[in-house]
């Protein structure tokens, strides 16, 4: 079966309500995931985030992720959008919507999209803390 797939990387604010209308009356279940900038991480107080993307690759990779997930699950609509640039507290970093006939497929597909985004999307996050310092998240893996 075919699915409607939308992958988007954007420097503009994401309005989660834009994707609430996804799917059709054939879909009994719609799962939305919204990832927001939270005010703490690893015990530190976060002021805002800065996302840097390898833009040419990120949208292509996101499309690959969604296509794979649509192949794995019986879903009619798989959409994901990821922010770049500076994102303030409470703003949306990533939004995913999956519509399907049955809820199990919708939940599982949504989780798989998020897991793959986390593993594969070439987008990096710099946390800016309340004390003004900044750190690239994941930088601990660099040999230095």
């Amino acid at each position, binding site marked *: 079966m075919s699915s409607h797939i939308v992958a988007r990387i954007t420097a503009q604010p994401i309005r989660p309500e834009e994707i609430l209308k996804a799917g059709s009356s054939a879909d009994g279940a719609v799962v939305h995931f919204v*990832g927001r900038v939270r005010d703490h*991480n*690893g015990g530190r107080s976060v002021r805002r985030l800065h*996302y*840097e993307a*390898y833009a*040419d*690759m990120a949208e*292509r*990779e996101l499309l690959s992720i969604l296509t794979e997930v649509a192949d794995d699950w019986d879903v009619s609509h798989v959409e994901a959008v*990821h*922010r770049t640039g500076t994102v303030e507290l409470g703003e949306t*970093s*990533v939004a995913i919507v999956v519509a399907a006939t049955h809820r199990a497929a919708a939940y599982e597909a949504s989780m798989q999209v*998020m897991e793959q*985004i*986390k*593993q*594969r*999307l*070439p*987008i*990096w*996050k*710099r*946390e800016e803390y309340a004390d003004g310092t900044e750190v*690239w*998240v*994941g*930088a*601990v*893996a*660099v*040999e*230095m």
Partner: protein
Amino acid sequence: MQPSPEDLSTVTVLLFAHYRDLAEDSSIELQVPTGATVRKAVALLRGLPGLDSLPSEPTVAVNREYVSLDHSLAPNDEIALIPPVAGGLFAGGVE
């Protein structure tokens, strides 16, 4: 045996996030032996000033697709060194 000039290819290396901070540059033109592996290119990069702290086995994409370190490079390839990603959402090993 030293390669002759015609045996060298130029590739573009893209650096992001903290790798870019290390290099103080987002893009480097690198000369590699024609047909060299990604592994060889990384070793050459680590010989450049400031880049000795790059990991010896980083995640790499060539022409916007993930490849293994054994991938052979062609002239004008775009090599991207991909720092650890955190999904854009959560801290590295915390989640």
